[in-house]
């Protein structure tokens, strides 16, 4: 009985993984083709001729290293700030009762409900007045304090029983101490998922860097890739080469972070 269930689970997962990986496979396969073969109709999954040269040529075509460095810098900083301030604020929303708290929280969620396209111009005007346009700081300030992180961490903190912090309070710990010593270590899975999702979103963001960054040496990988698409719109093989390379750092982060949201390892790892 159990074996049947296992087998069918594997079968389902196997099929699904294929379905899920097909576009990625297309990306990889295209990155090894000549440009003119990428959009052939019907599609060719295995390149007629492997162009491994794409992977070495791209470094000379665009300043990929600069782009990668900028992306890493922005993603790491924004993720760190988001996780830090987000989890800190979430403690206030989840564990401290004070008047006006729920209204304030609603204001946070309400802003998520407005599409960015609607307020990007007012936001830009503020940034321009502050003289921050065309700096990395503008993007950091824009994305590091998003409501998303606060909301996610608050929901997670709600599942941590109050008597834990109550006991710590009786031991004489301050609220800040409780956050740092009790709550933060307990919320590793949530911190890991918030960090991962923030990292991925920052890494893949295009419109923000496009609007705010003009100097080429400040550009991120997504902006660099899109500009490459715009410049050489027929060089799809090279575009896909760039896309494959741009995904690799996320893959590494994912594999590293994975152990934090999987049962067993996460609980035994907490000390």
């Amino acid at each position, binding site marked *: 009985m159990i074996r049947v269930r296992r087998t069918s689970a594997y079968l389902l997962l196997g099929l*699904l993984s294929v379905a899920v990986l097909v576009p990625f496979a297309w990306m990889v396969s295209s990155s090894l083709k000549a440009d003119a073969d990428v959009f052939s109709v019907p599609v060719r999954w295995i390149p007629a001729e492997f162009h491994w040269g794409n992977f070495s040529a791209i470094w000379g075509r665009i300043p990929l290293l600069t782009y990668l460095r900028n992306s890493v810098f922005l993603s790491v900083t924004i993720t760190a700030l988001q996780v830090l301030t987000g989890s800190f604020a979430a403690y206030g929303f989840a564990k401290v009762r004070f008047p006006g708290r729920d209204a304030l929280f609603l204001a946070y969620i309400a802003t998520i409900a407005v599409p960015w396209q609607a307020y990007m111009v007012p936001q830009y005007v503020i940034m321009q007045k502050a003289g921050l346009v065309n700096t990395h700081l503008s993007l950091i300030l824009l994305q590091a304090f998003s409501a998303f*992180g606060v909301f996610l961490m608050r929901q997670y903190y709600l599942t941590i029983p109050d008597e834990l912090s109550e006991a710590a309070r009786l031991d004489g710990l301050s609220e800040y101490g409780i956050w740092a010593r009790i709550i933060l270590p307990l919320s590793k899975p949530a911190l890991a998922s918030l960090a991962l999702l923030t990292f991925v979103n920052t890494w893949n963001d295009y419109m923000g860097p496009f609007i705010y960054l003009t100097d080429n040496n400040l550009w991120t990988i997504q902006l660099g890739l899109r500009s490459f698409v715009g410049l050489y719109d027929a060089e799809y093989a090279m575009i896909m080469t760039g896309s494959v390379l741009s995904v690799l750092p996320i893959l590494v982060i994912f594999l590293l972070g994975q152990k934090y949201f999987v049962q067993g390892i*996460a609980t035994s790892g907490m000390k």
Partner: protein
Amino acid sequence: MTATVSAPRQVRPPVPAPRPVRRRSRTWVGWSFILPNFIGFAALTLVPVIASLALSFLDWDSYSTPRWVGLDNFERMIHNDTFWTALKNTAYYAVGHVPLTLCAALGFAVLLNQKLKGARFFRTALFFPYITSLVAVAVVWNMLLSPESGPVNQFLRAVGIDHPPGWTTSTTWAMPAVIVASVWRDLGYYMILYLAGLQTIPAELYEAAQVDGASGWQRFRHITVPGLRPTTFFVLIMLTISSFKVFDLIQVMTEGGPGRATLVLSQVIYREGIVQGRFGYSSAVSMVLFVIVLTITVVQFRLQRRSER
């Protein structure tokens, strides 16, 4: 550590009597936690959002002095056919996208939280669509769903359906095609949130239930689902909001077409605002989107409160 994790929390414990701390100082402590985030949030998100919503009562082209026009923008909107089409399409998308993604994400999270051989691989694989380049996603989905030569329609013909749908080139089937692609893309994202949520459910509860002879379904129904309630609440709200705001995937897959078959509100906001420079009207549409989403969110909040009591 295991000791703390296994603290009983199946039923929410009664809130302990508040310590004799003055209200004032409690408020101060609360704000001190929120402030570091709030300063950045208020200056760069809250203020622009309020400004943009206020614009819906103005006529503004991003350059000249804004002019008060009262409800003119809204009046123009309710008489505009494109607005209603986009509103209907957005609702259609949300109704399809939210439940499907929620169930799929929850299902796979539960499945992949078990000690399954290769779970690591599958977890990574399921997250892939979210990080694959949007261009690749659009191209491959359009190719799979290609009316003449696509594998999907070839399969449908093989099983005896003579006139399979034209998918993204058909006004009837474009939206379902977009919904399927979007569920596929977002699945891994929400699965991550559920995996984190699952870590809060103590293993002891499952062990105890197994001893009592509860079936797999019963364990899922009576332990997993209640234990994941805060996560589900979060996922539900984020999913609802994000599906009402959907933009990128539709932009690359169909650009709102064919015709206006997949045109959604965010695209209208984008076109009217940043492309056409009619910021007042664009903000009026944002306002509608905002009110709809906020209403749904508040209802969800109320329901959650009630279920907690």
